């Protein structure tokens, strides 16, 4: 078992090293933690060998429990955005890459991500119908209204008026990008698909007492950013039942990583 853990550890470290180089916003330690988290989540699945990663249901649970997302359709779309190879599973690579944007993406990355989420049929445009579909639950229905969709339709028109710069009655990526750059608030114009920025770190509850703190507030920390990340990673590991001793950034002293499982 110890050997297994050691091997496992080695594997994880290697993987983390590779991934942290491919992904912009996580350092090696963080990547490592996230891999462990991934493995932890995966471990709950009854048949590990079958899956290549997190399935839709599992992933949606995370979105719902951790990030408070409620809109089924949007959650599905987020899953699709993570699942780049469309194999219906989020692999560990997709997991790290996705979270990199999801948690710490730059505005450009987020615009792209949101557009992908909102472009329901993937044709490169957000059409009137797609908007209607996404906004249809955004207004409280009034029982007395003649046409309950009236308000939604109007909202779609308002949005088009505001964002459709080339007046072709649909939003191209260019339209969307320009609109968001003009007014950042429009990034999530058709539904919440990013974690909320209310807190510096949000507790990631995985059930059975495993808690994880993740920070997606790059640059928001008043103190040293690196320290902050490390601290969060440490907490993450702790909550996962992993004991991680990490050094200050710069790698002067490398910590020991215990896997408590």
């Amino acid at each position, binding site marked *: 078992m110890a050997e297994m853990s050691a091997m496992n550890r080695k594997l994880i470290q290697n993987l983390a090293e590779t991934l942290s180089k491919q992904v912009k916003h996580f350092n090696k330690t963080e990547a490592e933690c996230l891999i462990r988290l991934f493995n932890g989540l995966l471990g709950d699945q009854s048949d590990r060998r079958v899956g290549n990663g997190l399935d839709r249901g599992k992933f949606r649970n995370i979105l719902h429990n951790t990030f408070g997302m409620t809109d089924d359709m949007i959650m599905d779309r987020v899953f699709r955005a993570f699942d780049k190879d469309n194999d219906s599973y989020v692999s560990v690579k997709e997991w790290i890459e996705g979270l990199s944007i999801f948690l710490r993406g730059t505005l450009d990355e987020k615009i792209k991500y949101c557009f992908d989420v909102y472009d329901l049929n993937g044709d490169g445009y957000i059409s009137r119908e797609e908007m209607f579909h996404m*906004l249809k639950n955004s207004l409280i229905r*009034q029982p*007395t209204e003649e046409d309950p969709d009236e308000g939604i339709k109007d909202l779609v028109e308002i949005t088009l008026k505001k964002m459709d710069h080339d007046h072709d009655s649909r939003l191209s990526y260019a339209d969307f990008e320009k609109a968001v750059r003009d007014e950042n608030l429009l990034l999530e114009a058709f539904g919440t698909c990013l974690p909320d920025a209310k807190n510096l770190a949000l507790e990631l509850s995985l059930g059975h007492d495993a808690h994880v703190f993740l920070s997606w507030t790059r640059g928001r920390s008043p103190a040293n950013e690196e320290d902050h990340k490390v601290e969060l990673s440490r907490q993450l590991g702790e909550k996962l039942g992993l004991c991680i001793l990490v050094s200050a950034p710069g790698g002067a002293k490398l910590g020991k990583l215990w896997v408590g499982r």
Partner: protein
Amino acid sequence: MGVALTRAAQWTTASSGTGKLEITPVNESLLKEILEFVEQFSSRHPQEAKHVFKEPLQWTTSLEASDFKTEYDISGPTVKSHETDKDGHPMLQLTPPSISVHSFSQLSKIVQLATDKRLKEVRACLEANRDPVAKMLGPSFATVEGEDSSVLRLLEKVKEGDQAKETEIKVKLIILLQQLDTQLLSNSLKLISQEVRLSPAAVKNDVELLKSFCSEGEKRVLTSVQYTSDYEFTNGCRTPPWRQVHGEICYLVIKPCDTQPLHITCSTAGVFLNGGIRQEGEENSYDRTSDVYKDLVTLLKSKSPHFAENINKQDFAVQEELPTQKVQHVELVDAEEQGQPQRSYEHQEKNVHEKARQQLVQNKPGGKKKLEPSLKWKNLGLASPYDEADDKKSKKNAVSERFAETQEKMQKKADFSVSSLPGRQSSDKTKTPGGVGGADDFSESSSESEEDEEQSERRTESNTDLPSEYWQIQKLVKYLKGGNQTATVIALCSMRDFNLAQETCQLAIRDVGGLEVLINLLDTEEIKCKIGSLKILKEISRNSQIRRAIADLGGLQTMVKILDSPDKDLKYLAAETIANVAKFRRARRTVRQHGGIKRLVELLDCVPDSAALTEEQEKDVEVARCGALALWSCSKSTRNKEAIRKAGGIPLLARLLKSPHENMLIPVVGTLQECASERSYRIAIQTEGMIEDLVKNLNCDNHELQMHCASAIFKCAEDKRTRDLVRQCEGLQPLVTLLSQADNKQLLAATTGAIWKCSISMENVAKFQDYKALETLVGLLTDQPEEVLVNVVGALGEGAQKPANRATIRKCGGIQPLVNLLTGTNQALLVNVTKAVGACATELENMTIIDRLDGVRLLWSLLKNQNPDVQASAAWAICPCIENAKDSGEMVRSFVGGLELIVNLLKSTNKEVLASVCAAIAKIAKDEENLAVITDHGVVPMLAKLTNTTDDKLRRHLAEAIARCCMWGSNRVLFGEAGAVAPLVRYLKSKDSSVHQATAQALFQLSKDPNNCITMHDNGVVKLLLGMMGSTDEVLQEAAAGCVANIRRLALANEKARYG
């Protein structure tokens, strides 16, 4: 009378002859007047009364022979009058039931005889004789429409001369009758104008409304309401044209729940029951069978008890006067707030035009349709589902509240002008039947009618409609209320696309209840919603009404809380909005009381690094900038200045003052200059080295920043060290350079202010001399606003303390404008002007000019000013004038009442005034004649009364004045008797050497009276004077010595007298 009868009287049918006078108020009053006229005719105009009618007036009477008394031949049922005409025919003949009368005298008698039947008789008479005038005077006098030439014809007859007597009487008669006619017409006009005139539109509204009452189950008050004809003419009437002539609009068959169907005629005169018109063509059924009611509801109330009872239950608004269409609109909004809008928004928008138009209709004078809108109200209440759920009581309250609100909003609404409303709505819309429910009902309440035509025209000429933005904003606010986070963000972003700088939009947001929502959003957890809301609030809070509304809604408290947020966007937006809102005192107090000042000061704590900033640092700077903006707004309250200081704001401001960014510096310097009114800040600005930065920023090229810097220096330079610092930092030259910015008056005022205060130091004056500041300043003496003038003149006054500058002012032509300014009314300006003129007057050449311009007289008249500062300053200025003017004694005497005026100023309680007046009196008293005059005005006892002062300045000038005044008559003795000597002796103990000199001179003068010498001696003057004699001041030496000599001489004389 003819015209009145044909035009005003209401006949049952149009056909003449057989018609009957209806029993209506108008007719009744007509009859009464005619009755009165006839009754008094024979007594008032006996001659005319005897005139025999061309044809007798005949009618069917109810009078009987028994009613007639003397003067009549009664034979059985027939009666003949004794009175006969020339041919012997009796003037009155009664053969029942018909009566014929030949003259007014008989008519009068009949009226008197008929007693209680008189009205009936008159009616019968008039009904039988549709044109009585024609019968009385002949067919040529028949009433014809248009020009009436009967009088002219009559006059021609008069000229012809035959039957002159009779014709004259005829003329008189016809004139009398015409007078009556005019009187009748004008009276009936009054009555008619009071009457309710219904219009097709009003009737249609009522009908639509009543129809809606039929549709309800349990609450229904009517079974059915139907028109007899489905065809509607273009004018809105449904009656056949030949009935429209009679003003009839439509016929209705209304089935109440409790009585027989009612057949109703709606006419312009009112509504009444008819004989039962089912189909067109049944002649007799058109006749009126009931009283006339002013509208359908009133009629129904009287005919159907069930209707009256039930309608009253709903009748909460019916008593209110003229609630306008806006009421419904408000109700709508309110209902939505409770999550139950009553119809789709789209629909409502379509109705906008109609509503607006209706409103105009209702605003028209006349108020014919007074009750109509309130009826629609009821209707709305009936139709709305939630009202049913509610209990009646709360509904009533809600309604009255809304009503009050509406009244208020109606006034506000007047603010809106301009309209980009699309043209008239399509006409097919108005034709759709409106009986579906309340919602439709009110939207359809205005139908096509003449009024509509008028309205559409009017709308194009007066744009009193609400602008389209109003409705769009209302819609967005609805989405804000009823949307989730996503919809809210979209609505917020869309709202920002309106021109929020425009008052129309700002007030629209408020009026549709948007402010409440925006402020509520600030209390949520949704950062994006908060940001979006603040971005809007930030813009619209530039409007003062919005500011107050935000404060009233508690927005400041929430925004202060947001300052604690870790999100920098939120922080700076909240701070910037606070900066806009805190423009009035109550808001500033609120910010302070909720700990806002401390939080705002904390925002200032960033490190403004001049090097390239990262994105985050830029945000920090923005946060600090907005914090400074908010503090700037808040710093207009004294207690906030204190709070900023206590929160440690000064060092932070000092640090930000080193920022290279102008947009940061402006609020920082703005705050500093605002706070510089407090001494603690002035010291801090001096000690924290901020003067240097302020001076540095004087050299920037932003006028606003320069202005605030100059203003800060202006306020701080009261302090000598600050003035020196400004000089040492080389701040004087940039100030002089700024004088060239003469177009920017605020900047100019601040700059000249700084120069003025800096000029208080003579070293600075010398510098300014080098920079040729005075030359420029003199150029600024004309065509400047007062706040600039005050400072310019102040600076000149300080500069003129140097002799060279006095010459400069003269050479630049500054004396004349200065003297001209003496006629002003601004007291601060007058104080400075008098000071400057006084300073200039010390130069002889200047004085010549001042004299020529009659400047002394102007100065003198300023002694009458209410402000003691002006009085004192004027008096000081007068001193050098008297000293330097030619023939000053003569000049002073020439001011009528002038000497009395200045002596009376000695009664002032202001030390400065007293000192200055004493100084002036000392100068005046140099002229013997004037001294005599002021002595007569009682100057001696007044001066003596002042001697007990401890104020050295006053002492000095008082002593001077006393010294001078001793020169006349027995004034020395009088001073002694008034007890002035002993206090003067004490002056010698003063530390001020200038007091010593003046006092010694006064004592020397006083010592010429032996009694005064004794007093002085008793008060130990000798020892003091002996000391003074050792002074280096020769004048003092001499005066002291002289005084001692006088005392000594008295003693010697005394000894001599005693010992021989």
